């Protein structure tokens, strides 16, 4: 049997300026990963042997598998159902909910966790109200303890479902009209059309969203320990700081990384043919069917639940705490924080999207095993705990300083570039998946036409691809922006000692081990997130005078927010 070859799009050669450029930048971003994987080849330490012998690893595996699995499932439910309703039907509040459902991304996960803990506590709003209404006394009734395994699954699902929601919604939107029309021909009810046609077609995007959610679950330490669940990452930290064995910790991390890589490659292998069956029909304008009374209420309810749980309730509680603790509004304190947060987040967003476009486009036009390898290896950073990323980046900077810095009198340690590099390593994943989805939407045929007319790849990228994927680009920028806004650990360790909104919120929260005092700062982060989302919505929804956009882009690809 002839060995199946990848489709060499334009040239048969592996190496040209595009693949070299992409390979170079991908390998550069992947340097910390190679640094970690390097530890796989080190000798075993006592701690590592202890870990393997004891039942610790088994406990960690069991907990992690259940945690990541259930969270993936719940966030998929929270993401898919509203995404379907919002892209197929029209019901009260559907246009508002369409972008409001993304808002939970503006809340850091640990803030969500601490806030819910505060709500369900014996001194929290919920129990206090119940005690007042029913006259119960403290200590005489049993109440649900949210700081448990199920509570953790709930908090993570409700905080991270927007990743699944966004990707599912974009996928549904592409297929909605044709799906419904053809399903009607077959006499399918809308439920059957959803289950048999729309959902399977959207599965690759949904799995990608779930993968992002699960990676974020794996990389968390603080929230997981607070809720009393010992996951794999807890093991990494225990080996590192409890047993003071960096080797063992890196070995554990390297195995986690390998696992994530394997899953990523597997995923690519399973869906690689499905891209041929995607319907990217730019000329169809999705029509949204209005719903009658009780169905409309049902749809509205289903969409309201994630928004309520993931955004409204936590924000209301934070506002309550803000007033309760008489927080002082001090612009002199806040402005530097806001400025630092904004500049770092925006700068990283632009940088990551630039890299994502470079890697994604090269992958599209030269799909072969090397470009695939480069793209996979550069987008694994999201699964790593931020302390590990920080340590790897610091080690690399130190190595550079020792070898070259002294001669050039250029030091990377504690520099801004180091911090931006650390952010890029960690968040390129998020930008890449969004940008790649955009490139897939544009499709290869249009590139074929362009090349056949003699246009260079660069010009095709800039004049054809990017304008057509305006919305994917913007959503990539937004996602990275929000993620960097929430990141504090990297900011603490790498780069100059910046104070951002995220670091200040975390400092106050960890001092009191409570969210009440840092509620106003957390609300500032959320406000900034809301601001950037509404800004994006505004940009996307202002009608564009350019007729090319109106005809091909605006009509077929409505606002992402």
């Amino acid at each position: 049997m002839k060995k199946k070859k990848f489709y060499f799009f334009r040239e048969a050669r592996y190496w040209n300026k595009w693949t070299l450029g992409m390979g170079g930048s991908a390998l550069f971003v992947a340097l910390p990963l190679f640094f970690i994987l390097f530890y796989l080849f080190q000798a075993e330490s006592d701690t590592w042997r202890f870990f393997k012998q004891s039942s610790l690893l088994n406990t960690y595996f069991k907990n992690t598998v259940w945690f990541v699995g259930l969270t993936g499932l719940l966030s998929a439910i929270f993401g898919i159902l509203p995404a379907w309703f919002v892209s197929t039907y029209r019901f009260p509040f559907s246009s508002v909910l369409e972008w409001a459902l993304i808002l939970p991304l503006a809340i850091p996960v640990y803030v969500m966790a601490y806030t819910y803990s505060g709500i369900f506590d014996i001194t929290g709003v919920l129990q206090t109200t119940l005690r007042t209404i029913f006259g119960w006394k403290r200590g005489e009734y049993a109440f649900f303890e949210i700081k448990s395994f199920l509570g953790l699954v709930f908090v993570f699902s409700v905080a991270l479902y927007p990743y699944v929601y966004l990707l599912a919604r974009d996928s549904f939107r592409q297929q909605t009209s044709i799906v419904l029309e053809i399903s009607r021909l077959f006499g399918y009810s809308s439920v059957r059309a959803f289950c048999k046609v729309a959902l399977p077609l959207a599965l690759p995007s949904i799995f990608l969203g779930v993968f992002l959610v699960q990676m974020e679950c794996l990389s968390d330490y603080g929230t997981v320990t607070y809720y009393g669940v010992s996951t794999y990452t807890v093991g990494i930290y225990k080996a590192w700081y409890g047993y003071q064995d960096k080797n063992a910790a890196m070995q554990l991390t390297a195995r986690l990384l390998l696992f994530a890589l394997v899953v990523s490659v597997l995923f690519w292998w399973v869906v690689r043919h499905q891209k041929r069956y995607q319907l990217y029909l730019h000329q169809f304008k999705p029509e949204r069917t209005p719903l009658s009374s009780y169905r409309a209420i049902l749809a509205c309810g289903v969409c309201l639940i994630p928004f309520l749980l993931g955004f409204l309730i936590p924000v209301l509680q934070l506002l309550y705490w803000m007033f309760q603790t008489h927080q002082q509004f001090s612009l002199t304190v806040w402005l530097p924080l806001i400025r630092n947060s904004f500049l770092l987040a925006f700068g990283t967003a632009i940088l990551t999207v630039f890299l994502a476009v470079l890697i994604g486009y090269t992958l599209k036009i030269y799909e072969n095993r090397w470009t695939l390898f480069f793209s996979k290896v550069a987008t694994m950073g999201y699964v790593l705990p931020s302390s590990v990323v920080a340590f790897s980046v610091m080690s690399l900077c130190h190595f550079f300083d020792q070898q070259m810095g002294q001669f050039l009198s250029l030091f990377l340690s504690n520099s801004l570039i180091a911090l931006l590099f650390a952010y890029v390593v960690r968040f390129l994943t998020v930008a890449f998946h969004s940008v790649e989805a955009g490139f897939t939407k544009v499709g290869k045929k249009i590139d074929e036409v362009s090349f056949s007319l003699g246009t260079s790849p660069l010009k095709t990228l800039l004049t054809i691809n990017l304008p057509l994927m305006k919305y994917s680009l913007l959503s990539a920028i937004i996602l990275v922006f929000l993620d960097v806004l929430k990141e504090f650990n990297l900011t603490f360790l790498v780069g100059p000692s910046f104070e951002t909104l995220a670091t200040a919120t975390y400092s106050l929260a960890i001092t009191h081990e409570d969210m009440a005092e840092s509620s106003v700062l957390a609300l500032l982060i959320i406000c900034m997130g809301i601001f950037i989302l509404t800004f994006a919505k505004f940009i996307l929804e202002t009608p564009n005078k350019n007729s090319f956009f109106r005809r091909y882009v605006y009509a077929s690809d409505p606002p992402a927010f």
Partner: protein
Amino acid sequence: MKKLYFLFFVFILGCEPNREPSPKNPNPEKNKNMGTITIYTHRHYPSDQLLFEQFTQKTGITITVRKGNGNELLDKLKLEGQNSPADLFMTADIGMLYQAKTAGVLQKAESNLLKESIPAHLRDPENYWFGLTKRARVIAYHKERVKPEDLSTYEALTEEKWKKKVLIRSSTNVYNQSLLASFIVANGEEKANTWVQQMVKQSMARKPVGNDRDQVKALAEGLGDIAIINTYYYGLLLHSTNEQEVEVAKSVGLFFPNQGDRGTHINISGAGVTASSKNKKEAIQLLEFLVQEESQKQFAEVNYEYPVHPKVAPSDFLKSLGTFKEDSVSLEEVGKQNKKAVQLFDQNGWE
């Protein structure tokens, strides 16, 4: 045109890092009159920031603060070695200070004022690190369900009467690790191991979850009768703006265990001068500032921590807790056993 703007924007951003080649000046000679020191600290208290500002006003020395997690900052110090810009390393636990000393990132700081202001068991005998504040790990009991006469020592918590009644947080927390380390020093590894075993098997009311404040709240919920917490968390609860939390705190009393033998376990929040410090004199000045009486008073008033200075009177809140005999074992010894403590926790399944 738009694509050109996009490219231009990206180009600008690509250029920007080069405009700022980020030189690191190991010797900031520009500040000849006023020095500048850098602190790596695990403490995130806003009151610390106020103290630093007071110091700057008084001496003209500017302070750059890098906050973070003590363990990670220690790794950073070790990595940076002699090129580290840090002058002081501050932590909230003895374990980290001991690890810093053994890793060789601290240097000796000779100061008579520090020696006079800090009791011997709260600073390093070789002057590598100094305690700045003290906190005790005590037993909180529910006033209605437990009489203080029933309580005696930490070790007695494994007795039959406390079956499924003790609330305590995770073993990943350094305060618990230091507590167990002090047991190892006092009673030996075997007895400490048995203690952990008994606690996990019979005394603990539930799997460890939450932080110290959550243990007190669980007391109020009726999930247990006694909890092990640090003294300053009780202060935070008692002075909370949430009335419910104040009521919960009032329904709970504090008991200082082991008054009959070695005394209650205490831990310090302390600092040491880094080996890479280029501003040793200024760093010691800051340390001396932090142990003088006004600063110690501030620690007590705002954070509910015990001052280390023997002549500083504790705040009203601390006075209300009463005086107690503290475990005067050298904290150096306690720091040594931290790793062993983690091992014992893991061997017996204390998560």
